[in-house]
Protein backbone atom coordinates (compact mmCIF):
# COMPACT_ATOMS: atom_id res chain seq x y z
CA UNK A 1 0.00 0.00 0.00
CA UNK A 2 1.43 3.37 -1.00
CA UNK A 3 1.85 6.08 1.59
CA UNK A 4 1.04 9.09 -0.53
CA UNK A 5 2.74 11.64 1.69
CA UNK A 6 5.96 9.65 1.71
CA UNK A 7 5.75 9.17 -2.04
CA UNK A 8 5.26 12.89 -2.64
CA UNK A 9 8.27 13.64 -0.46
CA UNK A 10 10.40 11.49 -2.76
CA UNK A 11 9.74 13.83 -5.65
CA UNK A 12 12.42 16.50 -6.01
CA UNK A 13 12.10 19.86 -7.77
CA UNK A 14 13.36 19.92 -11.32
CA UNK A 15 16.23 22.22 -12.22
CA UNK A 16 15.28 25.21 -14.33
CA UNK A 17 17.23 26.22 -17.43
CA UNK A 18 18.56 29.33 -15.66
CA UNK A 19 20.19 26.98 -13.12
CA UNK A 20 21.98 24.88 -15.77
CA UNK A 21 25.18 26.89 -15.48
CA UNK A 22 25.41 26.24 -11.75
CA UNK A 23 24.77 22.55 -12.29
CA UNK A 24 27.56 22.33 -14.82
CA UNK A 25 30.02 24.30 -12.71
CA UNK A 26 29.30 22.33 -9.54
CA UNK A 27 29.30 18.96 -11.24
CA UNK A 28 31.76 16.52 -9.64
CA UNK A 29 33.48 15.04 -12.64
CA UNK A 30 35.93 12.88 -10.76
CA UNK A 31 36.00 9.42 -12.29
CA UNK A 32 37.80 6.18 -11.57
CA UNK A 33 40.57 7.18 -13.92
CA UNK A 34 41.28 10.24 -11.76
CA UNK A 35 41.33 8.05 -8.67
CA UNK A 36 43.73 5.65 -10.33
CA UNK A 37 45.92 8.51 -11.34
CA UNK A 38 46.04 9.73 -7.76
CA UNK A 39 46.77 6.24 -6.47
CA UNK A 40 49.59 5.68 -8.93
CA UNK A 41 50.99 9.08 -8.16
CA UNK A 42 50.94 8.27 -4.45
CA UNK A 43 52.68 4.90 -4.99
CA UNK A 44 55.39 6.56 -7.01
CA UNK A 45 56.04 9.14 -4.30
CA UNK A 46 56.15 6.43 -1.63
CA UNK A 47 58.74 4.45 -3.61
CA UNK A 48 60.91 7.54 -3.98
Amino acid sequence: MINFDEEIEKFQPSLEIEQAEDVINNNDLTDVTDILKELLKGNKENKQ
Partner: protein
Amino acid sequence: MICPNCGSNMPDKRKRCERCGTDLTLYKKVQRASNLYYNDGLARAKVRDLSGAVIALRKSLDLNKLNTSARNLLGLVYYEMGETVAALSEWVISKHFQPQNNDADEYINKVQSNLTRLDALNQAIKRYNTALGLAKQSSADLAMIQLKKVVTLNTNFIRAYQLLALLLMKTGDNARAKKYLQKVSKIDVTNTTTLRYLQELEAPAANAKDLDSNPEAEQSGPIGAIMPISSYKEDKPNIMAFVNLVIGVVIGLAVMAFLVIPTIKNNKSSDNSTDYQNSGYIAQLQDKDNTITTLQNEKADLQKQLTDLQTQIDNTAVPEDKTQVYVPLFDATEQYFTELSKSAGTRDFTAVADLLAGVDDTQLEIESAVTLLNRLRTEIYPDVAKAHYTKGHNLYSSAKYQEGLVELQKAMTFDPADVDAVYFAARSYQRIGDNVNAALYYNKVITDFPDSSRVLDATNFLAEVQG
Protein backbone atom coordinates in the same frame (compact mmCIF):
# COMPACT_ATOMS: atom_id res chain seq x y z
CA MET B 1 45.27 5.58 -26.61
CA ILE B 2 46.06 8.75 -24.68
CA CYS B 3 48.19 8.41 -21.57
CA PRO B 4 46.19 9.78 -18.63
CA ASN B 5 49.37 10.86 -16.92
CA CYS B 6 51.24 12.80 -19.61
CA GLY B 7 48.59 13.04 -22.34
CA SER B 8 50.80 11.54 -25.09
CA ASN B 9 49.22 9.42 -27.80
CA MET B 10 50.36 5.81 -28.17
CA PRO B 11 49.26 2.51 -29.74
CA ASP B 12 46.46 0.63 -27.93
CA LYS B 13 48.57 -2.50 -27.59
CA ARG B 14 51.17 -0.82 -25.35
CA LYS B 15 50.83 -1.62 -21.63
CA ARG B 16 53.13 1.18 -20.52
CA CYS B 17 53.52 4.74 -21.67
CA GLU B 18 56.62 5.14 -23.80
CA ARG B 19 57.03 8.76 -22.71
CA CYS B 20 56.39 8.77 -18.95
CA GLY B 21 56.56 5.04 -18.24
CA THR B 22 53.16 4.87 -16.53
CA ASP B 23 51.56 1.42 -16.32
CA LEU B 24 48.42 1.60 -18.45
CA THR B 25 46.96 -1.84 -17.65
CA LEU B 26 44.47 -0.59 -15.08
CA TYR B 27 43.58 2.39 -17.23
CA LYS B 28 42.81 0.08 -20.09
CA LYS B 29 40.62 -2.09 -17.92
CA VAL B 30 38.76 0.93 -16.64
CA GLN B 31 38.19 2.21 -20.18
CA ARG B 32 37.02 -1.21 -21.30
CA ALA B 33 34.57 -1.35 -18.40
CA SER B 34 33.34 2.14 -19.27
CA ASN B 35 32.76 1.06 -22.85
CA LEU B 36 30.92 -2.05 -21.67
CA TYR B 37 28.58 0.06 -19.62
CA TYR B 38 28.10 2.39 -22.57
CA ASN B 39 27.16 -0.59 -24.76
CA ASP B 40 24.77 -1.74 -22.08
CA GLY B 41 23.25 1.71 -21.83
CA LEU B 42 22.89 1.93 -25.60
CA ALA B 43 21.18 -1.44 -25.74
CA ARG B 44 18.76 -0.42 -22.99
CA ALA B 45 18.03 2.94 -24.63
CA LYS B 46 17.18 1.18 -27.89
CA VAL B 47 14.42 -0.79 -26.16
CA ARG B 48 13.23 2.30 -24.21
CA ASP B 49 14.60 1.05 -20.92
CA LEU B 50 15.54 4.62 -20.18
CA SER B 51 15.95 4.18 -16.43
CA GLY B 52 18.29 1.26 -16.98
CA ALA B 53 20.15 3.20 -19.67
CA VAL B 54 20.68 6.11 -17.31
CA ILE B 55 22.17 3.80 -14.66
CA ALA B 56 24.48 2.09 -17.16
CA LEU B 57 25.62 5.33 -18.75
CA ARG B 58 26.21 6.93 -15.35
CA LYS B 59 28.46 4.01 -14.44
CA SER B 60 30.24 4.34 -17.75
CA LEU B 61 30.94 8.02 -17.03
CA ASP B 62 31.96 7.28 -13.45
CA LEU B 63 34.64 5.06 -14.85
CA ASN B 64 35.66 7.36 -17.67
CA LYS B 65 34.41 10.89 -17.72
CA LEU B 66 35.94 11.37 -21.17
CA ASN B 67 33.57 8.85 -22.74
CA THR B 68 31.83 11.43 -24.90
CA SER B 69 29.54 8.94 -26.61
CA ALA B 70 28.20 7.79 -23.25
CA ARG B 71 27.70 11.38 -22.09
CA ASN B 72 25.92 12.42 -25.30
CA LEU B 73 23.68 9.38 -25.10
CA LEU B 74 22.94 10.14 -21.46
CA GLY B 75 21.91 13.64 -22.51
CA LEU B 76 19.58 12.21 -25.15
CA VAL B 77 18.05 9.83 -22.62
CA TYR B 78 17.51 12.65 -20.15
CA TYR B 79 15.91 14.75 -22.89
CA GLU B 80 13.60 11.90 -23.79
CA MET B 81 12.61 11.61 -20.14
CA GLY B 82 11.73 15.31 -20.10
CA GLU B 83 14.76 16.31 -18.03
CA THR B 84 15.82 19.18 -20.26
CA VAL B 85 18.32 20.82 -17.92
CA ALA B 86 20.07 17.56 -17.19
CA ALA B 87 20.31 16.82 -20.90
CA LEU B 88 21.74 20.26 -21.72
CA SER B 89 24.21 19.94 -18.86
CA GLU B 90 25.53 16.63 -20.15
CA TRP B 91 25.92 17.97 -23.67
CA VAL B 92 27.71 21.10 -22.46
CA ILE B 93 30.13 19.01 -20.38
CA SER B 94 30.63 16.70 -23.35
CA LYS B 95 31.46 19.73 -25.47
CA HIS B 96 33.93 20.85 -22.82
CA PHE B 97 35.84 17.57 -22.95
CA GLN B 98 35.64 17.23 -26.74
CA PRO B 99 35.27 20.57 -28.46
CA GLN B 100 35.75 19.16 -31.99
CA ASN B 101 33.69 16.55 -33.84
CA ASN B 102 31.15 16.27 -31.09
CA ASP B 103 27.48 15.38 -31.71
CA ALA B 104 26.58 17.43 -28.64
CA ASP B 105 26.92 20.53 -30.86
CA GLU B 106 24.02 19.39 -32.97
CA TYR B 107 21.88 18.50 -29.97
CA ILE B 108 22.47 21.84 -28.24
CA ASN B 109 21.78 23.77 -31.43
CA LYS B 110 18.56 21.87 -32.06
CA VAL B 111 17.26 22.66 -28.59
CA GLN B 112 18.38 26.28 -28.56
CA SER B 113 17.28 27.09 -32.10
CA ASN B 114 13.60 26.63 -31.23
CA LEU B 115 13.14 29.34 -28.60
CA THR B 116 9.41 28.74 -28.35
CA ARG B 117 9.96 25.09 -27.57
CA LEU B 118 12.71 25.95 -25.08
CA ASP B 119 10.44 28.46 -23.36
CA ALA B 120 7.67 25.89 -23.19
CA LEU B 121 10.05 23.37 -21.63
CA ASN B 122 11.18 25.93 -19.07
CA GLN B 123 7.57 26.83 -18.29
CA ALA B 124 6.85 23.15 -17.80
CA ILE B 125 9.69 22.87 -15.28
CA LYS B 126 8.53 25.93 -13.35
CA ARG B 127 4.96 24.72 -13.25
CA TYR B 128 6.12 21.29 -12.16
CA ASN B 129 8.03 22.83 -9.26
CA THR B 130 4.95 24.89 -8.33
CA ALA B 131 2.76 21.82 -8.51
CA LEU B 132 5.18 19.89 -6.35
CA GLY B 133 5.05 22.62 -3.73
CA LEU B 134 1.25 22.59 -3.82
CA ALA B 135 1.18 18.81 -3.55
CA LYS B 136 3.42 18.92 -0.51
CA GLN B 137 1.01 21.47 1.01
CA SER B 138 -1.86 19.04 0.42
CA SER B 139 -3.39 21.19 -2.33
CA ALA B 140 -3.86 18.25 -4.64
CA ASP B 141 -6.51 19.85 -6.82
CA LEU B 142 -4.40 22.90 -7.65
CA ALA B 143 -1.35 20.73 -8.13
CA MET B 144 -3.20 18.52 -10.60
CA ILE B 145 -4.32 21.55 -12.61
CA GLN B 146 -0.71 22.68 -12.89
CA LEU B 147 0.53 19.21 -13.76
CA LYS B 148 -2.01 18.78 -16.52
CA LYS B 149 -0.64 21.95 -18.05
CA VAL B 150 2.92 20.66 -17.55
CA VAL B 151 2.31 17.42 -19.44
CA THR B 152 0.77 19.49 -22.23
CA LEU B 153 3.89 21.66 -22.47
CA ASN B 154 6.33 18.77 -22.15
CA THR B 155 4.70 15.54 -23.22
CA ASN B 156 7.69 13.39 -22.10
CA PHE B 157 8.07 14.77 -18.59
CA ILE B 158 8.01 11.46 -16.71
CA ARG B 159 8.25 12.91 -13.21
CA ALA B 160 5.26 15.16 -13.90
CA TYR B 161 3.19 12.21 -15.15
CA GLN B 162 4.15 10.19 -12.10
CA LEU B 163 3.27 12.99 -9.67
CA LEU B 164 -0.01 13.58 -11.46
CA ALA B 165 -0.82 9.87 -11.33
CA LEU B 166 0.05 9.75 -7.65
CA LEU B 167 -2.28 12.68 -6.91
CA LEU B 168 -5.05 11.10 -8.97
CA MET B 169 -4.61 7.89 -7.03
CA LYS B 170 -4.83 9.89 -3.84
CA THR B 171 -8.11 11.43 -4.94
CA GLY B 172 -9.42 8.02 -5.99
CA ASP B 173 -9.36 8.60 -9.74
CA ASN B 174 -7.47 5.39 -10.42
CA ALA B 175 -8.62 5.08 -14.02
CA ARG B 176 -7.03 8.33 -15.06
CA ALA B 177 -3.97 7.64 -12.94
CA LYS B 178 -3.55 4.37 -14.76
CA LYS B 179 -3.95 6.11 -18.10
CA TYR B 180 -1.13 8.52 -17.30
CA LEU B 181 1.08 5.75 -15.94
CA GLN B 182 0.57 3.72 -19.09
CA LYS B 183 1.61 6.74 -21.10
CA VAL B 184 4.80 6.92 -19.00
CA SER B 185 5.37 3.22 -19.57
CA LYS B 186 5.48 3.84 -23.29
CA ILE B 187 8.26 6.42 -22.78
CA ASP B 188 10.25 4.50 -20.17
CA VAL B 189 9.25 0.87 -19.99
CA THR B 190 11.16 -0.10 -16.85
CA ASN B 191 10.72 2.93 -14.63
CA THR B 192 10.46 1.39 -11.19
CA THR B 193 8.26 4.17 -9.81
CA THR B 194 5.80 3.76 -12.66
CA LEU B 195 5.73 0.03 -12.26
CA ARG B 196 5.21 0.34 -8.52
CA TYR B 197 2.24 2.69 -8.99
CA LEU B 198 0.74 0.44 -11.64
CA GLN B 199 1.15 -2.48 -9.33
CA GLU B 200 -0.66 -0.54 -6.63
CA LEU B 201 -3.50 0.19 -9.00
CA GLU B 202 -3.79 -3.43 -10.04
CA ALA B 203 -3.65 -4.69 -6.47
CA PRO B 204 -7.47 -4.99 -6.01
CA ALA B 205 -7.68 -7.29 -9.00
CA ALA B 206 -4.91 -9.42 -7.55
CA ASN B 207 -6.78 -9.51 -4.26
CA ALA B 208 -9.86 -10.64 -6.10
CA LYS B 209 -7.94 -13.55 -7.58
CA ASP B 210 -6.81 -14.53 -4.11
CA LEU B 211 -10.37 -14.39 -2.90
CA ASP B 212 -11.55 -16.69 -5.68
CA SER B 213 -9.32 -19.37 -4.26
CA ASN B 214 -10.84 -18.85 -0.80
CA PRO B 215 -14.62 -19.55 -0.92
CA GLU B 216 -15.14 -18.53 2.68
CA ALA B 217 -14.16 -14.98 1.93
CA GLU B 218 -16.89 -14.61 -0.70
CA GLN B 219 -19.66 -13.84 1.72
CA SER B 220 -17.80 -11.25 3.76
CA GLY B 221 -15.99 -9.28 1.03
CA PRO B 222 -17.15 -7.19 -1.88
CA ILE B 223 -16.35 -10.04 -4.18
CA GLY B 224 -19.41 -11.82 -2.72
CA ALA B 225 -21.48 -10.16 -5.41
CA ILE B 226 -20.03 -12.57 -7.95
CA MET B 227 -22.62 -15.24 -8.69
CA PRO B 228 -21.46 -18.87 -8.62
CA ILE B 229 -22.09 -20.98 -11.65
CA SER B 230 -25.37 -22.79 -11.07
CA SER B 231 -26.83 -25.95 -12.58
CA TYR B 232 -29.01 -25.89 -15.74
CA LYS B 233 -32.52 -24.60 -15.34
CA GLU B 234 -35.41 -24.15 -17.77
CA ASP B 235 -35.51 -20.62 -19.09
CA LYS B 236 -38.28 -18.57 -17.63
CA PRO B 237 -40.82 -17.10 -20.08
CA ASN B 238 -39.43 -13.99 -21.58
CA ILE B 239 -41.28 -11.22 -19.85
CA MET B 240 -39.18 -8.51 -21.48
CA ALA B 241 -41.46 -8.45 -24.52
CA PHE B 242 -44.44 -7.80 -22.27
CA VAL B 243 -42.52 -5.15 -20.34
CA ASN B 244 -41.54 -3.46 -23.58
CA LEU B 245 -45.17 -3.50 -24.70
CA VAL B 246 -46.28 -1.88 -21.44
CA ILE B 247 -43.54 0.73 -21.73
CA GLY B 248 -44.62 1.45 -25.30
CA VAL B 249 -48.23 1.94 -24.23
CA VAL B 250 -47.15 4.22 -21.39
CA ILE B 251 -45.02 6.27 -23.77
CA GLY B 252 -47.93 6.49 -26.22
CA LEU B 253 -50.28 7.70 -23.50
CA ALA B 254 -47.69 10.18 -22.34
CA VAL B 255 -47.32 11.50 -25.86
CA MET B 256 -51.09 11.85 -26.11
CA ALA B 257 -51.28 13.59 -22.75
CA PHE B 258 -48.37 15.93 -23.17
CA LEU B 259 -48.25 16.60 -26.90
CA VAL B 260 -51.47 15.78 -28.79
CA ILE B 261 -54.11 16.95 -26.32
CA PRO B 262 -52.40 20.27 -25.52
CA THR B 263 -52.11 20.87 -29.27
CA ILE B 264 -55.84 20.25 -29.79
CA LYS B 265 -56.61 22.53 -26.87
CA ASN B 266 -54.38 25.16 -28.27
CA ASN B 267 -56.13 24.96 -31.63
CA LYS B 268 -59.49 25.36 -29.96
CA SER B 269 -58.34 28.22 -27.87
CA SER B 270 -56.80 29.79 -30.95
CA ASP B 271 -60.19 29.53 -32.75
CA ASN B 272 -61.87 31.17 -29.80
CA SER B 273 -59.23 33.77 -29.70
CA THR B 274 -59.81 34.37 -33.44
CA ASP B 275 -63.52 35.00 -32.81
CA TYR B 276 -62.62 37.17 -29.93
CA GLN B 277 -60.19 39.02 -32.10
CA ASN B 278 -62.85 39.42 -34.82
CA SER B 279 -65.32 40.83 -32.32
CA GLY B 280 -62.59 43.12 -31.15
CA TYR B 281 -61.98 44.28 -34.70
CA ILE B 282 -65.72 44.95 -35.22
CA ALA B 283 -65.78 47.01 -32.05
CA GLN B 284 -62.75 48.91 -33.25
CA LEU B 285 -64.43 49.51 -36.61
CA GLN B 286 -67.55 50.84 -34.91
CA ASP B 287 -65.46 53.11 -32.79
CA LYS B 288 -63.69 54.35 -35.88
CA ASP B 289 -67.04 54.90 -37.68
CA ASN B 290 -68.24 56.92 -34.73
CA THR B 291 -65.07 58.89 -34.74
CA ILE B 292 -65.41 59.56 -38.48
CA THR B 293 -69.00 60.75 -38.03
CA THR B 294 -67.98 63.02 -35.18
CA LEU B 295 -65.13 64.42 -37.21
CA GLN B 296 -67.40 65.00 -40.22
CA ASN B 297 -69.84 66.89 -38.01
CA GLU B 298 -67.06 68.94 -36.58
CA LYS B 299 -65.82 69.61 -40.10
CA ALA B 300 -69.29 70.81 -41.19
CA ASP B 301 -69.50 73.09 -38.16
CA LEU B 302 -66.09 74.49 -38.83
CA GLN B 303 -66.95 74.99 -42.50
CA LYS B 304 -70.04 76.89 -41.50
CA GLN B 305 -68.04 79.02 -39.09
CA LEU B 306 -65.55 79.66 -41.84
CA THR B 307 -68.30 80.76 -44.24
CA ASP B 308 -69.78 83.07 -41.62
CA LEU B 309 -66.46 84.58 -40.87
CA GLN B 310 -65.76 85.03 -44.57
CA THR B 311 -69.10 86.75 -44.95
CA GLN B 312 -68.29 89.00 -42.06
CA ILE B 313 -64.99 89.81 -43.60
CA ASP B 314 -66.61 90.55 -46.95
CA ASN B 315 -69.22 92.76 -45.33
CA THR B 316 -66.77 94.60 -43.27
CA ALA B 317 -65.82 97.77 -45.05
CA VAL B 318 -62.23 98.11 -45.11
CA PRO B 319 -61.41 101.62 -44.12
CA GLU B 320 -59.70 103.36 -46.93
CA ASP B 321 -56.46 104.85 -46.48
CA LYS B 322 -57.34 108.28 -45.17
CA THR B 323 -54.34 109.79 -46.73
CA GLN B 324 -55.67 109.03 -50.22
CA VAL B 325 -58.48 111.58 -49.91
CA TYR B 326 -55.95 114.31 -49.48
CA VAL B 327 -54.03 113.47 -52.64
CA PRO B 328 -56.34 115.40 -55.03
CA LEU B 329 -56.25 118.35 -52.65
CA PHE B 330 -52.47 118.33 -52.59
CA ASP B 331 -52.34 117.92 -56.35
CA ALA B 332 -54.76 120.78 -56.80
CA THR B 333 -52.77 122.95 -54.45
CA GLU B 334 -49.57 122.17 -56.24
CA GLN B 335 -51.21 122.86 -59.61
CA TYR B 336 -52.63 126.08 -58.25
CA PHE B 337 -49.25 127.33 -57.20
CA THR B 338 -47.83 126.27 -60.53
CA GLU B 339 -50.42 128.40 -62.32
CA LEU B 340 -49.78 131.28 -59.96
CA SER B 341 -46.13 131.21 -60.88
CA LYS B 342 -47.16 131.89 -64.49
CA SER B 343 -47.94 135.34 -65.84
CA ALA B 344 -51.43 136.59 -65.27
CA GLY B 345 -52.54 136.26 -68.86
CA THR B 346 -51.49 132.67 -69.31
CA ARG B 347 -52.94 131.22 -66.13
CA ASP B 348 -55.50 128.45 -66.52
CA PHE B 349 -57.20 127.25 -63.40
CA THR B 350 -59.59 124.82 -65.07
CA ALA B 351 -57.35 121.82 -64.29
CA VAL B 352 -57.09 123.01 -60.69
CA ALA B 353 -60.86 123.29 -60.50
CA ASP B 354 -61.31 119.81 -61.90
CA LEU B 355 -58.94 118.43 -59.22
CA LEU B 356 -60.79 120.34 -56.51
CA ALA B 357 -64.09 119.00 -57.79
CA GLY B 358 -62.72 115.50 -57.30
CA VAL B 359 -62.00 116.09 -53.60
CA ASP B 360 -64.66 114.53 -51.35
CA ASP B 361 -64.81 117.15 -48.61
CA THR B 362 -66.92 114.88 -46.40
CA GLN B 363 -63.90 112.55 -45.98
CA LEU B 364 -61.59 115.29 -44.90
CA GLU B 365 -61.03 115.09 -41.17
CA ILE B 366 -58.41 117.75 -40.81
CA GLU B 367 -59.85 121.18 -40.32
CA SER B 368 -57.00 122.96 -42.02
CA ALA B 369 -57.48 120.78 -45.11
CA VAL B 370 -61.15 121.68 -45.24
CA THR B 371 -60.23 125.32 -44.84
CA LEU B 372 -57.68 125.05 -47.61
CA LEU B 373 -60.19 123.33 -49.89
CA ASN B 374 -62.82 125.95 -49.29
CA ARG B 375 -60.36 128.72 -49.81
CA LEU B 376 -59.12 127.32 -53.08
CA ARG B 377 -62.63 126.75 -54.29
CA THR B 378 -63.59 130.33 -53.34
CA GLU B 379 -60.55 131.64 -55.14
CA ILE B 380 -60.77 129.55 -58.28
CA TYR B 381 -64.36 128.43 -58.90
CA PRO B 382 -65.88 131.83 -59.90
CA ASP B 383 -63.26 132.50 -62.52
CA VAL B 384 -63.32 128.97 -63.84
CA ALA B 385 -67.11 128.94 -63.90
CA LYS B 386 -67.06 132.20 -65.85
CA ALA B 387 -64.52 130.76 -68.28
CA HIS B 388 -66.63 127.64 -68.86
CA TYR B 389 -69.73 129.75 -69.32
CA THR B 390 -68.03 131.95 -71.86
CA LYS B 391 -66.81 128.95 -73.76
CA GLY B 392 -70.18 127.23 -73.54
CA HIS B 393 -72.05 130.34 -74.69
CA ASN B 394 -69.66 130.72 -77.63
CA LEU B 395 -70.29 127.13 -78.62
CA TYR B 396 -74.03 127.71 -78.28
CA SER B 397 -73.74 130.71 -80.50
CA SER B 398 -71.89 128.62 -83.00
CA ALA B 399 -74.80 126.11 -82.88
CA LYS B 400 -72.50 123.54 -81.21
CA TYR B 401 -75.05 122.67 -78.63
CA GLN B 402 -73.59 119.39 -77.43
CA GLU B 403 -70.13 120.78 -76.81
CA GLY B 404 -71.66 123.87 -75.35
CA LEU B 405 -73.70 121.80 -72.92
CA VAL B 406 -70.52 120.25 -71.53
CA GLU B 407 -69.04 123.62 -70.82
CA LEU B 408 -72.27 125.00 -69.41
CA GLN B 409 -72.61 122.00 -67.10
CA LYS B 410 -69.14 122.73 -65.77
CA ALA B 411 -70.02 126.40 -65.34
CA MET B 412 -73.08 125.34 -63.31
CA THR B 413 -70.97 123.06 -61.23
CA PHE B 414 -68.40 125.64 -60.29
CA ASP B 415 -70.92 128.44 -59.90
CA PRO B 416 -74.46 127.17 -59.19
CA ALA B 417 -75.68 130.78 -58.80
CA ASP B 418 -74.96 131.62 -62.44
CA VAL B 419 -78.52 131.78 -63.89
CA ASP B 420 -77.20 132.44 -67.39
CA ALA B 421 -75.45 129.11 -67.48
CA VAL B 422 -78.69 127.35 -66.43
CA TYR B 423 -80.73 129.31 -68.96
CA PHE B 424 -78.46 128.53 -71.89
CA ALA B 425 -78.20 124.90 -70.85
CA ALA B 426 -82.03 124.79 -71.13
CA ARG B 427 -81.83 126.50 -74.49
CA SER B 428 -79.22 124.05 -75.72
CA TYR B 429 -81.40 121.09 -74.72
CA GLN B 430 -84.33 122.69 -76.47
CA ARG B 431 -82.24 123.22 -79.60
CA ILE B 432 -81.12 119.62 -79.71
CA GLY B 433 -84.73 118.51 -79.09
CA ASP B 434 -84.33 117.30 -75.53
CA ASN B 435 -87.46 118.98 -74.22
CA VAL B 436 -87.46 117.11 -70.95
CA ASN B 437 -84.08 118.38 -69.82
CA ALA B 438 -84.92 121.74 -71.39
CA ALA B 439 -88.10 121.95 -69.25
CA LEU B 440 -86.13 120.85 -66.22
CA TYR B 441 -83.62 123.66 -66.59
CA TYR B 442 -86.35 126.26 -67.49
CA ASN B 443 -88.14 125.33 -64.29
CA LYS B 444 -84.85 125.66 -62.42
CA VAL B 445 -84.46 129.21 -63.78
CA ILE B 446 -88.00 130.08 -62.80
CA THR B 447 -87.81 128.46 -59.37
CA ASP B 448 -84.26 129.16 -58.22
CA PHE B 449 -83.85 132.59 -59.76
CA PRO B 450 -87.32 134.18 -59.63
CA ASP B 451 -85.84 137.67 -59.65
CA SER B 452 -83.75 137.11 -62.73
CA SER B 453 -84.41 138.79 -66.04
CA ARG B 454 -84.32 135.33 -67.63
CA VAL B 455 -87.53 134.21 -65.91
CA LEU B 456 -89.88 135.68 -68.52
CA ASP B 457 -88.08 134.06 -71.43
CA ALA B 458 -87.75 130.84 -69.54
CA THR B 459 -91.47 130.83 -68.88
CA ASN B 460 -92.23 131.32 -72.56
CA PHE B 461 -89.82 128.69 -73.72
CA LEU B 462 -91.09 126.33 -71.05
CA ALA B 463 -94.52 126.70 -72.52
CA GLU B 464 -93.08 125.87 -75.92
CA VAL B 465 -91.29 122.75 -74.81
CA GLN B 466 -94.23 121.59 -72.79
CA GLY B 467 -96.65 122.45 -75.56
